């Protein structure tokens, strides 16, 4: 190993073998972790008769019947719209409220606030749901978009703040000092220097929290209803009501998951950093 010049040819050979083994192991991991998505996707195009066949059928003529069932016989387009508006508004509102607060916690080292935030992040949503249920019932907020958006802020806001604190702390303070010396106000420093510099982080956290809101199930299960039905709840209802139609179930699951998976692939550059940043910095 230490004297490669002694036998260069042999070295290259072992190197190639190592690479080969590495890719084999990696492929096994990938198949292991991603098979479920492949199976979901394939089954959503499989004719119903073949879905329940044993042994499983791998080659078949694809059908769009399940997607037809999902979109024509159920208002899935409306569920999609609900999911989208709820996620976008809760993320938007949380960004407006959360970014200045995260900046302040990072800049003025308000560790007490950070600790409170950590506690909030640890608690399960159900901790707040009984009182919210009672209050919502009295105020008539059950099964309203506003009501669901408010609860989604519960999970999205702490997430945004937590990740952004870490991100803001990483921006060198010399840049801010320079702006101050040049006569910029404190507020101006934040808006004109810090926010633009942190745009990649903000994008990452916005996407992360969009996904978290999109995936949320328990809030709408308890506080939602037919008017605010989001995609995850619709998929769940597919499972529980009426006869179970596996093909349609797979199609519905694909409709819910695909936007998230595509989003993850498109923004992969930001994603890994965003997911771990909150954890590592913390």
């Amino acid at each position, binding site marked *: 190993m230490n004297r490669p010049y002694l036998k260069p040819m042999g070295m290259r050979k072992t190197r190639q073998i190592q690479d080969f083994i*590495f890719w084999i*192991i990696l492929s096994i991991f*990938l198949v292991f*972790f*991603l098979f*479920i998505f492949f*199976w979901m996707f394939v089954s959503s195009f499989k004719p119903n008769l073949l879905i*329940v066949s044993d042994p*499983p059928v791998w080659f078949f003529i694809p059908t769009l019947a399940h997607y037809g069932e999902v979109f024509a016989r159920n208002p899935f387009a409306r569920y999609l719209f609900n999911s989208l508006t709820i996620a976008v508004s809760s993320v938007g509102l949380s960004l*407006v*409220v959360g970014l*200045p*607060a995260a*900046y*302040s916690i990072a800049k*003025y*080292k*308000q560790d007490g*606030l950070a600790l*409170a935030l950590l506690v909030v*992040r*640890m*608690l399960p949503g*159900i*901790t*707040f*749901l*009984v*009182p919210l249920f009672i*209050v919502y019932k009295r105020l008539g907020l059950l099964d309203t978009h506003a009501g669901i958006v408010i609860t989604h*802020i*519960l999970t999205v*806001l702490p997430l945004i703040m937590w990740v952004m604190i870490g991100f803001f702390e990483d921006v060198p*303070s010399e840049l801010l000092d320079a702006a*101050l010396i040049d*006569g*910029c106000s*404190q*507020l101006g420093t934040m808006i004109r220097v810090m926010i633009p510099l942190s745009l990649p982080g903000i994008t990452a956290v916005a996407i992360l929290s969009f996904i978290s809101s999109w995936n949320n*199930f328990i809030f709408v299960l*308890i506080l939602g209803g037919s008017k605010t039905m989001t995609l*995850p709840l619709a*998929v*769940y209802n597919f499972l529980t009501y009426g006869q179970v139609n596996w093909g349609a*179930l*797979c199609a*519905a*699951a*694909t409709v*819910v*998951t695909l936007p*998230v*998976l595509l989003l993850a*692939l498109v923004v*992969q*550059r930001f994603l*890994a950093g965003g*997911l*771990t940043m909150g954890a590592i910095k*913390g």
Partner: protein
Amino acid sequence: MQQKAGPNSDQTGQTSDSSPEPPFESGGARQEDQKPRYAPSGGLLGRAFALIDRNLAYVLPAPAAIVILLLMGYPFFYTVSLSLQRVNVTMTRFTFVGAENLLEVLTADARFLSAFWITLYFTVASLMLELVLAMIMALVMNRTFRGLGVIRTLFLLPLVATPTATSVIWLIMMEPSIGILNYFLEAVGLPPSLWVAGERSVVPSLVWINTWHGVPFVMLILLAGLRSLPTEPFEAARIDGASKLQEFFLITLPLLKGAIVVAMLFRAIDTLKVFDAIWIMTAGGPGRRSETLHIYSYLTAFEFYDLGYGSAVILVFMVIILVISAVLIRLRQRAWL
């Protein structure tokens, strides 16, 4: 806790950064120096702006603090007060009963106790499995190769995919008679399993699903940790003739301790809270074999509509999460010292 918006006392000593001093610490001439030089030339608007600008440490976090207090602080205290009451199903009569609910949860509720042990089993098993798998994967991936970014993202998909949807697909794949997992088991000569339908196999099946979901996160953190390790100890070990195994257990593992504890902390918090997958796949069954604390909390409050007792269960559940997290946080501080 949240309403204390000002800088903390531990900041007193820091005068090097450019932040404005808190009003109660008059820094004398130095503070004059640090005043931003936009110099509002009088006028009500200018003075208001200056006031905001000088107290930014209070103004900026205020909206978030109000939202958090309103949405989380208030419900929290409401839950505490509800746990001291008996509430009828129609939510029309609230009777104060003192600590009766809490005492019953802690001393006389066999169902709660069983949920506690199931939650603990589920969490510990998940964390162990995740750590081992993630460590193997991180060690394999700790090299430079083409396509690292894409492959890392592919591994992240289980983490971001909608749990409701993936749970449904797992349910289909784990179907005992025609599910594909049993087909695979039989193909390699293993006996088929009942998966989530079996009393003994339900928690291991759920552990596997939770592991599948959590491994990518742990792997990312361990990989970041591996990549930031210093090279000198490894060179020294190689010169001393250490084997690969010795290298791993005597150098890599101790150096990674911090990253491991962080990953476990975040996964422990998430795993204690798992609801979607369990609710969708088993709803706590068969029997009550997969009834975790979160499922039991949900059932008491929102299926039986026993809001008083449900609040007591939720409160104890919450304290358990906080205690476990606090222990792990202590451990992490220790690991990094």
